[in-house]
């Protein structure tokens, strides 16, 4: 009763407010909900392991943001009843997982509550979210930004990390400064130099019967960015104090990370070159946790993010405990009315990336049972040079060409080398030391794939998009692997409707019973800022990689329904 009275009071108050004051601020938000009704499919799941007891699962969220002048506040409500198969099971239940208040005044910007933040390229601090992957490591605490003079930004943060519906016991705190010299000194012309540095440390409550684990661990990074009319060079180097953890087999070695990325752009030509060298840089607020959770830092992978569904089955994921590599990419636009460009021009992308292990010299100790172990030691020393294991390479060539006013074709060829043990068997990458001891070699796959996409504008607002994909590999990991073919046809009537049908055929699976067709159909309707999508069919096994671990989403069969809305 009291609640209802309060509500009536608030409503009348707000009405009065609204009548007296035209502008009470801005309220906006978004909403998403996804449901899946599962059907038992004995072909893809003979034992029913991926068939949930609930049969119908649903999850979603609602964000609210309020703003008036320099004041902002907001919250997010999340619900998982229960989370859909393949997403982390620890997302179960419902609650407010994010709320904040923020004001900005005279260059001073304060957030109290949950916040996201990134220092530099994120190596020592990146609080971020990827809702679709179920990843959210926001901090709950205080964030302060201050810009005392033009071109200088100071940041200070302190808080505890989100861990599903709980919070980490550890405290994360950090400061960062970035100085844009051109802005401050008023340089003329295009050239600019931006320098920055940050320190992040954690306090963790830990005890271990055998090891003396540090309670405070610090990391620090410095960065420099040079920008000219055609070039952009960014480099960041980070250092981390000893931080024994499950990820690094409880070794006391210090961590280092180097990330350099440069680009060149001049009219029709663009190029990038990136280098990475990460050594023992798994950076989490607790030494032992769910591998997807409590990451403080983010190591840029320097690889292409593939989005066509077959090549995306073998996507790369940074190995936090140590790796090195590079990526080079070239973009070229053959202008229209040239021999190669034809009437409408032609765009070409050429890319190569490689990652290998570090050249490590292990320094194990002998434990009480006479076994050689790494825990409690510095683990290894790192030499400059290539390591013993190749983790990954990705060569791809993409050509985009508009054939006529109505037809556009994109063709891509891919060649991957994929170290399955390193990239799929958990956060520590290859248990290399165990491999070396046993003299075994990791399981690796060679993969060739091609995708042709044809976009046909049939008449105004009507178009048909078709994808033909194939992926050829002998690699097989459990039920997952072998050759694939896929056809997708998507007919759209802008701006409201689309219908898509797809058949993915795993024709080369090593297991003959799994050489099956995955048919599916989807229809979507957009009304203003509301979108509704209904689907039916079999979905093939998928892989989501995040935070140093890849999660396999099992194949499923059934109906899906999704709603997204903005207001």
């Amino acid at each position: 009763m009291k609640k209802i009275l309060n509500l009536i009071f608030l409503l009348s108050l707000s009405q009065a407010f609204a009548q007296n004051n035209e502008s009470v601020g801005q309220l906006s938000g978004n909403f998403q909900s996804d449901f899946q009704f599962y059907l038992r499919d004995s072909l893809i799941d003979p034992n029913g392991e991926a068939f949930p007891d609930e049969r119908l699962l649903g999850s979603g969220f609602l964000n609210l943001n309020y703003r008036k002048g320099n004041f902002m506040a907001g919250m997010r409500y999340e619900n998982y009843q229960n989370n859909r198969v393949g997403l982390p099971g620890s997302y179960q239940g419902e609650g407010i997982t994010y709320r904040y208040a923020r004001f900005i005044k005279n260059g001073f910007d304060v957030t109290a509550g949950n916040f996201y933040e990134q220092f530099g390229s994120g190596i020592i601090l990146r609080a971020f979210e990827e809702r679709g992957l179920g990843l959210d490591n926001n901090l709950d605490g205080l964030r302060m930004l201050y810009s005392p003079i033009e071109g200088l930004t100071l940041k200070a943060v302190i808080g505890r990390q989100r861990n599903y519906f709980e919070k980490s016991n550890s405290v994360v705190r950090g400061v960062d400064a970035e100085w844009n010299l051109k802005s401050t000194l008023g340089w003329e012309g295009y050239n600019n130099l931006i320098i920055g540095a940050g320190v992040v440390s954690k306090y963790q409550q830990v005890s271990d019967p055998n090891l003396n684990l540090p309670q405070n661990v610090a990391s620090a990074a410095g960065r420099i960015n040079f920008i000219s009319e055609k070039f952009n060079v960014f480099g960041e180097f980070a250092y981390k104090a000893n931080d024994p953890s499950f990820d690094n087999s409880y070794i006391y070695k210090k961590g280092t990370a180097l990330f350099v990325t440069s680009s060149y752009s001049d009219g029709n030509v663009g190029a990038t070159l990136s280098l990475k060298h990460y050594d023992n840089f798994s950076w989490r607020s607790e030494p032992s946790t769910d591998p997807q959770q409590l990451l403080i830092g983010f190591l840029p992978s320097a690889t292409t993010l593939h989005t066509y569904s077959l090549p995306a089955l073998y996507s790369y994921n940074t190995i936090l405990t140590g790796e090195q590599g590079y990526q080079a990419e070239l973009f070229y636009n053959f202008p229209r009315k040239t021999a190669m460009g034809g009437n409408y021009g032609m765009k070409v992308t050429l890319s190569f990336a490689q990652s290998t292990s570090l050249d490590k010299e292990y320094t194990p100790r002998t434990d009480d049972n006479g076994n050689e172990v790494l825990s409690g030691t510095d683990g290894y020393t790192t030499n400059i040079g290539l390591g013993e294991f190749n983790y990954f390479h990705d060569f791809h060539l993409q050509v985009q060409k508009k054939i006529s006013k109505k037809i556009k074709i994109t063709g891509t060829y891919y060649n991957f080398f994929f170290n399955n043990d390193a990239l799929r068997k958990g956060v520590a990458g290859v248990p290399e030391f165990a491999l070396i001891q046993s003299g075994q070699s990791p399981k690796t796959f060679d993969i060739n794939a091609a995708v042709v996409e044809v976009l046909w504008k049939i008449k105004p607002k009507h178009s048909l998009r078709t994808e033909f994909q194939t992926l050829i590999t002998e690699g097989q990991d459990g039920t997952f692997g072998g050759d694939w073919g896929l056809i997708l046809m998507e007919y759209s009537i802008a701006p409201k409707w689309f219908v898509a049908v797809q058949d993915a055929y795993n024709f080369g699976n090593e297991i003959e019973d799994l050489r099956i067709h995955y048919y599916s159909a989807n229809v979507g309707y957009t009304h203003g800022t509301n979108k509704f999508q209904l689907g039916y069919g079999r979905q093939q096994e998928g892989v989501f990689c995040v935070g140093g671990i890849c999660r396999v989403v099992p194949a499923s069969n059934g109906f899906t329904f999704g709603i997204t809305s903005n207001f």
Partner: protein
Amino acid sequence: MKNLSYILLLSLGFSFSSFAQKKVPAIKIKDLKGNVVDASTFENDGKPIIISFWATWCKPCVRELNAINDQYADWVDETGVKLIAISIDDSRLSSKVRPFVSSQGWEYDVYLDENSELRRSLNVNNIPHTFLLNGKGEIVWEHNGYFPGDEDHLYEMVEKLINGETIE
């Protein structure tokens, strides 16, 4: 938690019509020269602005920006509209944005929102997500996703704005 639900109720209690039109908040993003820019300062001499959230890896986004690019010169001539493309590529890919934009031949103003702060404050869930701002900087229309032909619908909205018609 209880207090929060009151704030929520209070917020919902305001009749929606009394709220001001949405504007772009004072969130800091970076231009391709590394300069920090306050997103609330976007302006186009009283003409409409299109803001499009995209990423180098997002195919429908690139398709949309290419489709608009084919007609952009005409749009600018006819209505004075300006397109601002905000990339949400994270630090893995943000260095690719500048050469990518240059090789696509886009004439847009391009910015980086590397940790999705502006994206979040404008409630952008999935990309592409396109906003249309009137001459006063108020968000009068928005659209999520892209299919060929959506750009024509967007341009109809721009023309309506220029002709002083109201947009649903």
